[in-house]
């Protein structure tokens, strides 16, 4: 047994084959990594919805903190709301927002929408964010914003 092991250790044959195998392995690993960069990973419904909700809420919260959201909503500047959300959200994120009063009546008479209607309707992962505004100026007049988000 010892003689076989020593013979194996001292053998000088097929060294290039071993090196070629190692090089081939490296090439395969690099090729797989390169292809992985372009692969579209299937989304996890649980994490995807949470991410969309966070993005939607962050956008609305930032606009509200800067005083823009209340100004646009209560002055019924629906185009400005759409433009502001377009700026705050990623380009591949489609959204649809509806503004309600306390009675459940829809307040926005114009659509606050961005994206492709078909993609929005067919998407499996649509997140919904509820955001409340209490009023504007010196008047208490709540508005409920329902923002729906989906990946394009």
């Amino acid at each position: 047994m010892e003689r076989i092991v020593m013979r194996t250790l001292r053998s000088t044959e097929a060294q290039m084959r071993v090196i070629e195998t190692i090089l081939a392995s490296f090439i395969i690993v690099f090729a797989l990594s390169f292809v992985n960069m372009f692969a579209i990973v299937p989304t996890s419904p649980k994490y995807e919805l949470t991410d969309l909700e966070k993005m939607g809420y962050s956008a609305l919260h930032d606009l509200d903190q800067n005083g823009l959201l209340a100004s646009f909503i209560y002055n019924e500047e629906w185009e400005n709301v759409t433009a502001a959300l377009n700026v705050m959200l990623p380009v591949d994120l489609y959204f649809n927002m509806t503004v309600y009063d306390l009675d459940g009546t829809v307040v926005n008479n114009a659509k606050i929408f961005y994206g492709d209607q078909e993609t929005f309707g067919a998407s499996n992962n649509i997140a919904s964010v509820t955001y409340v505004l209490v009023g504007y100026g010196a008047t208490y007049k709540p508005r409920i914003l329902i923002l729906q988000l989906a990946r394009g």
Partner: protein
Amino acid sequence: MRKLIKQKKGQFVIIAMLVIAIMIISIGALIHRTVTYYKHEPWEEYLTLIGNIELSSRRLVEISLANHTNGDNPNILKENLEKWQRNLTQIYLGYGVSLNCPSNEIICSWNNPTSFSSASANFTLNINSIGLTGYKFAAVALLKLSNTTNPLYSNQNKTWSINVTVTDENRNLTTLKKDNFQILINELEHENFTVVPQYFVNYTATSHKFFYRIECQGVMSDPSGGSGVTLQVWDQRGIKVTAKYS
């Protein structure tokens, strides 16, 4: 050195060591990735809800103060808070949201050289669906008007001037315009005035001060002999404060 280069023994050992090193590095990278993997915390879903309620409650206090300082309703804060508590439960039906306000008040000290309007409320939030109990936060709204110089009347130029600072609960307000101010001289509205924002750097005291220089033109007599000058300021939220200089 030549002997080393021509050496034909030990290649297998070298290759085996190389493979082992690669395996160790791969396992290390895998462990690092596992440790830093994103963990989904259910609490993060509810932080948005809590943040919204908190910001809206603060806005409510500001709206109530704006209403109170521009109108006559002394109970507006209490009324708005009661409505907000009821509506919140209705809006977030199913979440078990309960917002309590154990204390709230509006204090306005006007018609002094340094005057202020303020409102404050303490809240306790419970959300039964996520087991949140007793989350406390406070909301404060303030608008303060102070003079940094005494009022000065020039009989020769017929001008009355003063330097003032306007501060809210966080900072000195620096974006006010002439439209945010109103001046009454001897209880009559005086429209011929200018508001110039200025920034004074006092190198000796190492203090920086932002103020508004207000100058009224066409003041025929010294107002201090009469009813004095009333200065009213509104901030961007609509909150008003009134100071008086005799």
